[in-house]
Structure formats: C-alpha cells, structure tokens
C-alpha cells in the first residue's frame, strides 16, 4: 500500500479546471461591467485579453509543475496515478481555456 499519496493530491485533479472556471467567471463579469459602463471597445477587449492571459499563465505554471514532478514517482502507484491524471486534466483545462474563451476576442463587444 502506498502511503506517499496525500489527500491534497486530489485537489490537484480539479485545480486546472478551477482556474478555467475562474477565467470564465472573470471574463463574463468584466464583459458585463465593461458593457454596462460603456468602456471603449478596444480597452474592453484588452481587458478581456488580459484576463485570459493571466489565467493561461497560471495554467502553464501548473502544467510545468506537474510535468516536472520529482524523480521516482513514476512507479505506477497511487501517487503516480494522481499526478498523471492531474497533469492530463490541467492540459485539458488549458485547451478548454484557449478554445472556449479565445474566440471571444474577435467578436463585436457589446451587441
């Protein structure tokens, strides 16, 4: 039995998508506020882009951290399982952030 798999590893399974969720919420909020207060369209777009980039940066850091895990963990045990799945989930979350949120940068802002 593998004692080297602390429960907090479970948090990493969802962490990437929590960042994606934050990006979605932040984007929707900034857009709503920007349109309600009639910000200039190019500034609003810049703001939305910044929100997306910050979150992609966070995801990239998490991806890196999971991909360069400590040596000796690739033992097929529980820890390896959780770290590998967390890595795949973080990659999926990054793809989701780019694909779902990216296109919005090209559309008319407030109509």
């Amino acid at each position: 039995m593998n004692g080297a798999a602390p429960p907090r590893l479970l948090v990493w399974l969802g962490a990437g998508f929590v960042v994606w969720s934050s990006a979605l919420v932040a984007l929707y909020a900034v857009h709503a506020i920007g349109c309600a207060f009639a910000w200039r369209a190019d500034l609003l777009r810049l703001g939305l882009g910044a929100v997306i980039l910050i979150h992609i940066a966070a995801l990239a850091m998490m991806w890196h951290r999971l991909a360069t895990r400590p040596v000796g963990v690739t033992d097929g045990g529980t820890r390896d399982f959780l770290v590998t799945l967390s890595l795949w989930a973080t990659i999926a979350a990054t793809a989701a952030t780019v694909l779902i949120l990216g296109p919005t940068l090209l559309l008319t802002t407030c109509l």
Partner: protein
Amino acid sequence: MDHSVLRATVYLATAAGLTGCTGPLSTLDPAGPAAASIATLWWVMLVGAAVLLALVVGIFALVLLRPGWGSSVSPQRWILLGGLGLPAIVLPPLVAYGLIAGERLLPLPGSTPPRIEVHAERWRWTARYPDHGGMATEGVLHLPAGTPVDIVVTSRDVIHSFWIPRLGGKIDVVPGRVNVLRVQADAPGHYQGQCAEFCGHGHSGMRFDVVVHPAVDFSAQIAKPDAAGKVKQ
C-alpha cells in the same frame, strides 16, 4: 430514356422533400436572408450529423457482429482518434462558422434601419411605427420588402418571444428590458409570427400576421385607413 427517368425522379423527390418542409411557420422555407443563412447552416449540420451517427453506430455494429474487428487498433489510438481527433476536426470549424454567422445577424451599428416598436402583453401583439406618425397596428406587423428593419420589443407583463420563423431567429421579450432584432423580408407577401415563450394559457394563440409590402409603397400602404390591424389612435 434512363436519363430522363432519373432526372424526373430527382425532381419529384426534391419537390416532395421541399413540400415537406414548407409551411407558414417553417424555418426551412426561408423568406429572408437571416432565415436563409440559418437554413443553410442547418442542412450542412444535418449532413454532418448523419455521417457521424452512421459512423458511430456502424462501428458499434461491426464491433459486435464481426468479432475481432478493430482489435488491431491499439486502445490508446481508439481513444485518441475517436475521443479527441474526431471532435477536433468537426467542432472548431462548426463553432467558428456559427460565430461568424451569428455576428452577421446582429443589429450592428454602421447602418440605421428604420425602427418598429413591438409591444407584447398577454396575449396579443401591438406594433407602433414611430417613423410613420406613431400609428399602431394590433395583431399585424407591416414590413417593407428587401430592406432591414430593427424591431424593438418590450413587454408589460411576463416574458414572451417574438418570432417570425420564415424571416429569422427569435428574440425574447423580457419585461424591464428593451431587446432589438434586425429583420428583413426578401419579397412582399403574407407571413406569420408567433410567441415562442410560454406565457400562460393564451400562449398557444398568441400569433400575429406579417404583411410585407414593396419598399417603395410601404408608407402609402400603411397610411391607408383600412390597412390590416390598424387601431385608432
């Protein structure tokens, strides 16, 4: 001989197919550019969906009826190709096309089409024409042909939805808000619209007629005292 029989069959089938799609409220019988754009989108998606359904059900059938079919493809490849590859080919172009088409349907600034105000309340529609002396019609909407019009919708009570299927998509009429739908009919004629959001027991009957006049005649036609649906001010 065979050639003409084949041709006749194709014509008949197309006619039958198309008749099956016509109707006063049919989205597949477009009478305006918005509805036409969406109808085209639909036919493309229908073909794509039919192919994908045939693919998946076909694979299922083969896998069940031919033991060992597909076992030479590695498990990883099954999941990567089917689970990731197939969606990656289908979804991005589809979503991109949809977003571009959607953009084109918006009431974009840059042109200022005439506005008609449509007011919904349980269970009837009233149209006001501010560019025509504020006259009003009830149960009937008059439109000019071949040119866009911005329909500004308001409700006094519950949520309704303004929809003329042969001309384009719908817009909800939300109390407390003002929504705008850009509508354009290709040619003069009679069309139908209806409420598309459940609003109580009169919902089924909450329809309206749409009379499209040639654009040059529009002001004259609706100024007539016996214009359809006209109400005394």
